[in-house]
């Protein structure tokens, strides 16, 4: 108790104001911000589509954007190098064969495609494409994999509804651990 009192007196003497009881032991230097003010940084898209922005993209527009910005690393139809293959690999996850993990064969959520392209692609100039172009490229890659049709339009409503072929093979280990 003695040391606690000393601490309390010191804090009071220095004129610190600790505004929040739950943060009583923190210097309390976090600056309040609203979600609106933080929006430019909030890139997170949930698997249920929460966070998906306005905008829409067609497979056709996606092909144009892809050929301009993506094919250099992923090849004309998503099976090139040096980057990961985006297309194909269905059926390679079983047995002892070498697995080919692509968007079509492996990825469990279509929303992840939008999230990742928007935050990290193209490699040399990430976060420069419009949200509509990110929808469009997502649509094109999904179409190359035969998951959506050539006339499909991707937006905040349709993208989360795309059922990925490998979705049901994923299972969550946490809080356990695999052997």
């Amino acid at each position, binding site marked *: 108790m003695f040391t606690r009192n000393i601490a309390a007196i010191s804090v009071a003497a220095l004129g610190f104001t600790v505004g*929040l009881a*739950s*943060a009583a*032991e*923190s*210097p*309390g*230097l*976090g*600056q*309040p*911000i*609203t*979600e609106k003010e*933080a929006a430019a*940084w*909030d*890139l*997170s*898209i*949930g*698997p*249920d589509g929460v966070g998906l922005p306005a905008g829409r993209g067609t497979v056709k527009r996606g092909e144009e954007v892809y050929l301009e910005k993506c094919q250099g*690393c992923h090849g004309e139809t998503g099976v090139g190098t*040096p980057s990961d293959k985006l297309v194909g690999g269905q059926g390679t*996850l*079983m047995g*002892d064969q*070498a*697995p080919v*993990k692509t*968007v079509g064969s*492996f*990825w*469990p*959520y279509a*929303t*992840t495609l939008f*999230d*990742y392209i928007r*935050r*990290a692609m193209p*490699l*040399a100039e*990430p*976060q420069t494409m419009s949200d509509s172009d990110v929808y469009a490229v997502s649509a094109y890659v999904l179409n190359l994999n035969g998951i959506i049709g050539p006339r499909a339009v991707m937006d905040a409503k349709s993208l989360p509804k795309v059922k990925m072929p*490998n979705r049901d*093979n*994923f*299972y*969550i*280990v*946490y*809080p356990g*651990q*695999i*052997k």
Partner: protein
Amino acid sequence: MSNDLNTKDLDTEQVAGNGLLDRRLFLRQGGGLIGAVGMAAGLAGYSRPVHAETLVVPDWTKTPGAWLQGYTQPSKFEGKVVRGPLPNNLYNGIGPGNARTPLQYLDGMITPNGLHYERSHNGIPDIDPAGHQLLIHGLVKRPLTFTVEALSRYPMTSRISFVECAGNSGGMYAATPADGTAQSLHGLVSCAEWTGVSLAMLLEEAGVDPTAKWLVAEGADAAAMSRSVPIGKALDDAMVALYQNGERVRPSNGYPMRLLLPGYQGNMNVKWLRRIKLLREPAMTKDETSKYSLLVKDGKVAQFNFPMDAKSVITKPSPGINMTAPGLYEISGIAWSGHGKVAKVEVTADGGKSWAPAALSDPVLSKAITRFRIPWRWSGAPAILQSRAIDETGYVQPTREAQIAARGSRAAYHCNLITSWGVAANGEVKHVYA
């Protein structure tokens, strides 16, 4: 002397096959007894050292040395002690890559900052700390931002912790043994003293909503690398690390701040940390779905397998650190567990037929690299050296056969099976399957 052990017995009595000696041999003796050990080596019929040359005073003792430097560098004679092998440059100098710690050239438990392993997904951002902020938002009462200067005023905690890439040792799943070194096979693990602010303190300041079960942590790099973390871990021992081995975190390791999640897969320890958003459900980012998940049997994919299980590897001898002549050696290596302390490390020199406990060098810390050592009298005959770590939960590092039987060989990540080094009669050490 108060030593209750007869060192002659320790030296001459094998504790396991093919020349493994009692771990206390080197620990319990004074200087005089080291001489006795050397003599015993001679008496046992091994080659005696060649007589030394007459001593001369070297030039560096007769010439004034170099002047002071603001930040010193290793000796120029240690030029081989570098990270690598660096990957091919696929994208004209940008893009993802990794650099591995030269484990076989290091001793002790701490990785020097310039040699800490690195995995980055689109290069190392050049962050001016004056323009960097950490945003905490989502399911909190008060979204907050913290400047580097503000966080530097918070009470600090320090802990020595390993960080290991979940892809470390992934080559050990291969059907044939990769021709590699401790560095190329296992060098995506390092250990440093990290100092920073408890994440729990910052989360409490923001006020965690009771519905928040996960958070997503995101970097300020050009990959905006992001991973979901269970709230339980975040409130347990997570840290926003500002310092690495006493100095500010290196740019390659997340300057000016990184998330430290002791024991969890390295990828989750988000570097260049700029944003933490509290969520009900995981975000299912690219790096927790298509990557860092384990393809196991029957095409199933194990996701969110977070702690790195107990592992060990012998670093001396190891490929490139060969045996020179028969005689007395110290086998040394590193062990670690994402579940707590290393309780025991056992070593075999006969490919697993018999095992002996190694000495663990102090300090033995939870979720930190632990150095182990055991004396070995090498007869000059071929030998297969292995180590296996046992952590404080009782978990035993598995054999290659056991791990592959349990999960198959296509999991890519979280490989922690026992490594075998084959020692040939000429002293050369190679990676083998045994």
